[in-house]
């Protein structure tokens, strides 16, 4: 019997990921991260600033998610966000995709569009999800810890 999994949560992070925003964000994500197999995608396209609290939050989220057999993937980092990820070496820890759709697809989920009734990953914590599909496209931007080249 197949076990129903939580939906993939796609969350766009604000322009400034600092101590103040992190508290709010963490509060919003807490219940999701406590469920079984939480699968998250953080859309970093708007992120222009990130301090150590933001870095801590990413680490805490991925740690909480993986403890419960879930994962956190990053998508569409802005140029500044990408530099910060590289500076803090988080680019080696996370799988990073060019778009949230690709990140969601890596979980085997297709992002719902206006004309699509396939599957869904929500922009907030209230979405519905489906089981992973059969095909999983390769990440375009970078594949962090799952990359064969990194392992080698």
């Amino acid at each position, binding site marked *: 019997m197949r076990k129903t999994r939580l939906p993939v949560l796609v969350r766009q992070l604000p322009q400034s990921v*600092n101590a103040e925003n992190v508290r709010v964000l963490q509060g919003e994500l807490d219940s999701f991260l406590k469920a079984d197999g939480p699968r998250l995608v953080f859309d970093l396209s708007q992120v222009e*600033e990130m*301090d150590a609290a933001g870095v801590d939050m990413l680490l805490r989220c991925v740690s909480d998610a993986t403890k419960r057999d879930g994962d956190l993937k990053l998508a569409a980092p802005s140029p500044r966000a990408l*530099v910060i990820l590289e*500076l*803090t070496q988080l680019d080696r820890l996370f799988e990073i995709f060019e778009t949230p759709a690709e990140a969601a697809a890596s979980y085997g989920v297709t992002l719902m569009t206006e004309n699509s009734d396939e599957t869904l990953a929500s922009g907030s914590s209230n979405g519905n999800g489906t089981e992973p599909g059969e095909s999983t496209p390769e990440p375009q931007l970078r594949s962090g810890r799952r990359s064969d080249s990194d392992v080698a």
Partner: protein
Amino acid sequence: MRTAAIIIVQDSNQSSVHDFSGAGSAPFGNRNLALLDVLGESVLNRTIARLQRYGIQPISVVSDIDIAHAPRLSWDGATADLEYTEAGELLASVERLLFQYSRQDFKALVLIQLTAYAELDYFDVLRSHRDQGRAVTTVQDGEGPLPVSVFNLKHEEQCAELLRSFWNGSLWHRNRSCASRYVFNGYLNRLENPYEFRRLVTDALTRRCELRPLGREVRPRVWLGDGARVDSGARILAPAYVGAHSKVRAAALVTRAASVERNCEVDCGTVIDDATVLRFSYLGPGLEVAHTLVDGGRLLHLARNLEFEIQDRRLLGRLRSPSPLLRLRDRVMARVRSSASSDVFVPTDSPEPASFHTAGEITP
């Protein structure tokens, strides 16, 4: 031939004046890069040392930046006279000095607008100037004119007129008959942008130019400045430079022509790869700083052409500016160095590999 020199240090963007004295950092593009340290010493100080080496004395520096009182700029008051003036008064100040040197019976004046690093043979430049017998000799390379010229001080009124033409860039247009050219084929870095600044660092560390790091070469192409402290668990891979009084903590790595200028701190596990860290910068633990210029919290990623400031001292930050006492000590040390025959142009060859990791160890 009795020769004096004037070095003009101009700040095209007034915002960078505040950068050198305040806590914040102006964008790299707004700065006169010749004032930033390159492997322990600024291009300004190196240019002064070079002129002295060729026996050109006295040297006056005319600037609209208060170099002497800016805490993060190194200025050795013993080597040249400094005149701080308003931006609009620079030409008037230079003119006044030109008349003054002319009346003191100097035969020639080397005028340098400090915007580039050039390894000029001033003997050759002065010989060419004398042989051609013109009122002014300008220096140029294959790409165009350099901001260096030599004036004949015999006729001060003519010199003043030529100076004004030189200043507004019309010398060759208006005074062609009075001017001659000296073609330079040596090493030149125009320092027009941070990329060229970084190239100067790599060229020096890889010995593509005469510029030598200020400090001891403790291993082939690894230099440490006075009082630099490297933890025994840190690695410095050649070519690399760690400036005076900087600390590199455990498990840190400095590699691929990376330079850490004086009074910096590189915290545990941080990697500095093909990057330059400017004075009084703090790099937090576990970072990877690659293809980058760092000045306090300001970061310019050269590969991505992206510059921004990180407002979190746990990642990047500005260390406390030097106290007046520390600056005094630096000046005394600089004076001692200059009196004990300049080592700026001569590579040191005193490798002490055995003591490299132990002598510099940081006590917990």
